[in-house]
């Protein structure tokens, strides 16, 4: 919240809007990269900026090595660089996650003695590195899959975009590249109004609805707790307005400044199954997992086991995907169980859908009934899943 209350954030948006229309002899990604560098420096301070830039430079070097080894047809070397890069990023992400929750790891990273790890860990916290780590992974995997590497300044803009820094969304590298591929849209009043409306809606969600809900339930300075299922249901609604608010603000800034920014929510409470819910809630994370975990794993399993084993393979793939989503939120037993619980629900939904849905086609009463009951079922299941991790959400 502090980030959005910083006047530099809004000043940056006001400066970036006209800046995009000034003709400059650089690509739009470079212009955004440079301005983003300045904005991050103003918002988070020089030390955090240096850590972020150093990390971005390291990722750029890895991407460059990957591209060169591909050009030289050295596929073994390319594979070794890609896998070690992915492993390195994952290790840093796990250390960061544990450092935020585990006292022992935190003491190792932020011990009393002055050391570089304290500076780096502090910067990782300031940069909300859970999101940046996924962008790093997507960049490395994209280059490995044949995408063109970019320059260091553009890459900094991709990895640490100021408007998507705190709570996402996670823009894919492929989507980010459209910043240079698509022509700059001319000045348009309707576009400006659309962007301002999106930002205003996000601010209303975040600072009015979510905050009123929080104050109503927990008091002005109260801790967010969820002792009962009702509390968890309330927390789910609060989370939606808080998180969707952040996402809409990012979306509006992206629309205003023409920086690729994906939508993150699409009326999730209208979903009729939990599986559908997670295609409408935190969409960018779902897309990341689908592209980088679900599809590669399911394809590998089906190529080895055959399509007839699709149901068995899907149980493994869904479970692994949701366990990873859980652990991405926090490395804890609670989130591990959260991931397993949701995976189990989705597997059951899949089995039921395969057997019952075919019979329900054309059955108007059954379909109409589920249109009403489905969203209630989804709300109950997702609230229950939140109950498993309610004490760890904040």
């Amino acid at each position: 919240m502090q980030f959005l209350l910083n006047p530099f954030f809004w000043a940056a948006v006001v400066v970036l809007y006209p800046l995009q229309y000034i003709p400059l002899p650089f690509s739009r990604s470079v212009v955004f990269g440079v301005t983003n560098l300045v904005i991050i420096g103003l918002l988070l301070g020089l030390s955090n900026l240096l850590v972020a830039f150093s990390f971005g430079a390291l990722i750029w070097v890895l991407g460059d090595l990957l591209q060169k080894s591909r050009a030289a047809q050295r596929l073994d070397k390319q594979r070794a660089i890609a896998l070690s890069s992915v492993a390195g990023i994952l290790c840093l992400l796990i250390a960061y996650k544990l450092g935020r929750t585990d006292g022992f790891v935190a003491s190792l990273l932020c011990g009393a003695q002055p050391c570089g790890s304290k500076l780096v860990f502090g910067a990782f916290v300031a940069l909300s590195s859970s999101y940046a780590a996924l962008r790093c992974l997507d960049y490395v995997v994209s280059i490995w899959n044949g995408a063109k590497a970019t320059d260091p300044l553009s890459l900094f803009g991709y990895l640490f975009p100021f408007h998507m820094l705190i709570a996402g969304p996670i823009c894919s590298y492929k989507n980010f590249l459209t910043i240079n591929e698509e022509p700059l849209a001319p000045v348009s009043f309707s576009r400006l109004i659309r962007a301002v409306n999106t930002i205003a809606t996000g601010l209303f969600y975040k600072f009015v609805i979510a905050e009123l809900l929080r104050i109503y339930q927990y008091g002005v300075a109260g801790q967010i707790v969820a002792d009962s299922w009702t509390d968890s249901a309330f927390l789910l609604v609060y989370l939606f307005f808080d998180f969707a608010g952040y996402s809409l603000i990012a979306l509006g800034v992206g629309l205003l400044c023409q920086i690729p920014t994906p939508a993150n929510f699409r009326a999730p409470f209208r979903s009729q199954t939990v599986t559908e819910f997670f295609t409408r809630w935190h969409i960018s994370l779902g897309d990341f997992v689908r592209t980088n975990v679900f599809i590669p794993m399911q394809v590998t399993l089906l190529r080895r086991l055959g399509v007839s084993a699709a149901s068995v393979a899907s149980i493994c793939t869904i479970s692994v995907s949701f366990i990873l989503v859980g652990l991405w939120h926090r490395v804890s037993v609670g989130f591990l169980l959260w991931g397993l619980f949701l995976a189990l629900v989705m597997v059951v939904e899949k089995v039921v859908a395969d057997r019952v849905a075919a019979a329900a086609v054309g059955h108007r009463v059954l379909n109409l009934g589920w249109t009403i009951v489905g969203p209630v079922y989804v709300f109950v299941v997702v609230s229950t899943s939140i109950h498993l991790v309610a004490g760890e959400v904040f």
Partner: protein
Amino acid sequence: MTPEALDKLTLIFRTMFNQPELVLSDNLSAADVPGWDSLKHVSLVVTIEAEFGVRFANSEIAALASVGDLTQLISAKIEQA
């Protein structure tokens, strides 16, 4: 894509989604076919790989948004082979 290849692809779709009357068009996407979710998408692609003797990259599979994308990709792969 040749008419024979399109017939083969149509048969795969009809069997996969249990819709004997399904007609393929370039604009046909997952939103138009009941049951075409991520799991079925992967099964569909792996079946096509086996039937057409081609191999798709994971990034290509993830990017497929319609039957038009699929037929273009299959044609490109067959030409490469």
